[in-house]
């Protein structure tokens, strides 16, 4: 086994991890702000993939699907927060979790009714078919695009959170919502926007993953478990944690797949168990909040 193969596999892991990062980020941002873990996150990832596929075939262009699906599904997420989750603030922390779990049933079955139970192939956009010569080997053009796009989205998110007034309100709201209300910020609107953003990120992950794995109504259940593993390893509520853990999990899966394919789905759970035994709050988590 030569070095270039290992490096190529490593890059594949980064592409896989990039989708995980985007998906887990949505989960972790919503938790950090609202204290809610969205159990419908995987289902919304799946709905995002279908929406992207549908919009791409409607407009005839992958790019419209990539742009519109996260926006539309994000808006749908805001509707969910407004109509359902808002009623549960102040009740047991288990209640939003249970509600979103019920919601995932509705979403999965809804997609089955509209699109059928069988998987649908998600065509790679024509501009991104083929491979790129990286000097040491050939790498699929689409995967390279995924890595670059996720990096851009992360940078934009980071700049918004750290450098703008909106970001300041969001960060302060995560620390102490009561004080923010005292200062005259409508925290309800911030929560609404953040929930929409989280769901939009799930949908973006779904569209990006589409051409890399088959699109079917059940795809969300594995994604949910993966996103949980990533956020638990990184530390729930930590953005840096989601990025580091997402890449770590993606690379581990892809490297193990090279040497022991049958262990590939199992390795991330083992990784999580080890991290929990050493650091129950996750790599970048704050102790006392959840662990």
């Amino acid at each position: 086994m030569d070095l270039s193969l290992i490096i190529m596999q490593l890059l594949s892991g980064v592409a896989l991890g990039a989708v995980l990062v985007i998906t887990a980020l949505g989960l972790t941002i919503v938790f950090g702000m609202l204290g809610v873990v969205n159990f419908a996150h995987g289902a919304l990832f799946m709905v995002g993939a279908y929406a992207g596929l549908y919009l791409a075939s409607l407009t005839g262009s992958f790019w419209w699907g990539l742009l519109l699906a996260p926006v539309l599904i994000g808006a749908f997420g805001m509707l969910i927060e407004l109509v359902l989750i808002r009623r549960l603030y102040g009740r047991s922390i288990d209640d939003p979790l249970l509600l979103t779990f019920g919601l995932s049933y509705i979403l999965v079955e809804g997609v089955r009714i509209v699109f059928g139970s069988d998987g649908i192939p998600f065509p790679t956009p024509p501009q991104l078919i083929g491979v790129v010569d990286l000097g040491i080997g050939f790498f699929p053009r689409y995967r390279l695009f995924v890595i670059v796009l996720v990096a851009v989205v992360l940078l934009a998110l980071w700049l918004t959170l750290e450098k703008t007034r909106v970001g300041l309100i969001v960060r302060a709201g995560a620390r102490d919502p009561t004080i923010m209300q005292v200062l005259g910020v409508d925290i309800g609107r911030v929560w609404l926007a953040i929930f929409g953003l989280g769901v939009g990120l799930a949908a973006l992950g779904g569209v990006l993953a589409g051409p890399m794995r088959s699109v079917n109504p059940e795809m969300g259940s594995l994604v949910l478990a993966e996103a949980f593993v990533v956020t638990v390893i990184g530390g729930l509520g930590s953005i840096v944690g989601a990025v580091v853990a997402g890449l770590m999990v993606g690379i581990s899966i892809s490297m193990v797949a090279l040497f022991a394919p049958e262990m590939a789905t199992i390795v991330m759970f083992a990784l999580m168990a080890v991290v929990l035994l050493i650091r129950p709050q996750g790599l970048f988590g704050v102790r006392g909040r959840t662990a």
Partner: protein
Amino acid sequence: MTHPSSGEAVAKPSPGGLGRVLDQRVLLSIAVLALLPWLLPSKALAVNVLIYGVVVMGYNLLFGYTGLLSFGQAAFFGAGAYFTGIAIGRYGVPWFAAVPAAVLLSTCLAAAIGLVSTRTRGIYFSMVTLALAQLVYYVALQAASFTGGENGLRGFTVDRISLLGFQVNFLDPVNKYYVLMAFAALAMWFQSRILNSPFGAVIEAIRENEQRARACGYDVERSKLVVFMLSGAISSLGGCMLALHLSIVPLDILHYQTSGMIVMMVLLGGARSFFGPFVGAASFLILEDVISLWTPHWQIFVGAIFVLFVLFLPRGIWGTLLDAMGSGKARR
């Protein structure tokens, strides 16, 4: 963000009175279950209510009484079923040895998963139990030579149950129901004993106020681990019952959808009530039966009904009924 505790303080009746109520609740539950095959449209449905009732009852110990929302109970339900099937089919162990062995092995699995997951709190616990249960699912999928992989476990059939010279034809649906009811009765007696014991008071104290329980000198972490194992043991007995009933073990039994179904059942019926799990299992399965008669998409209705329960009826059918009767504090 701070969330107030969901439950109100629990008033404790005098020990004598409590003991009487507890003895009655097992006998009353058994009496209702004994009539079940004649109340429901089919014997198969009644057997399923019995099996899922036991699984959900074990889960209720963890979620309802201790307040730990696990999304991984399917691991123990499935483990009980797989271990029973493998013991009978592969090693030719008689049923009366296979069932206790399966429960014991499943309890060991619960100890391993509990060691990792009970170190975490709150939402973390739900996520970690879900992930670890999915790990069990993938291990069962990969270890196809033992478990049959995607096709499920086949090749073991129990057609007669014999003990101490008595023989029962297990293929007869009525016999099958009452044999399995004996298992359920045993599980109910065990659960009632746990709840009636000082340990039962400790787990409820942990639910109401974990820090205060710790301040009172209770070892909260160890109590959580023990209750996780006990809960897994009872749910795994339900798995054993399923294996004996179906003579196959489908792989889906380990999937997190099954864990979710268990959560739904306990909430529909009423968490933190003794008979609620059976009410929840019965309502879920009847709902599934009725709705799937006119549409294959029954899950969308089940999901919607569940959402409405979380929003408007968080105490479930049986729990709300008990509250309305003003006997909620006796927690029958």
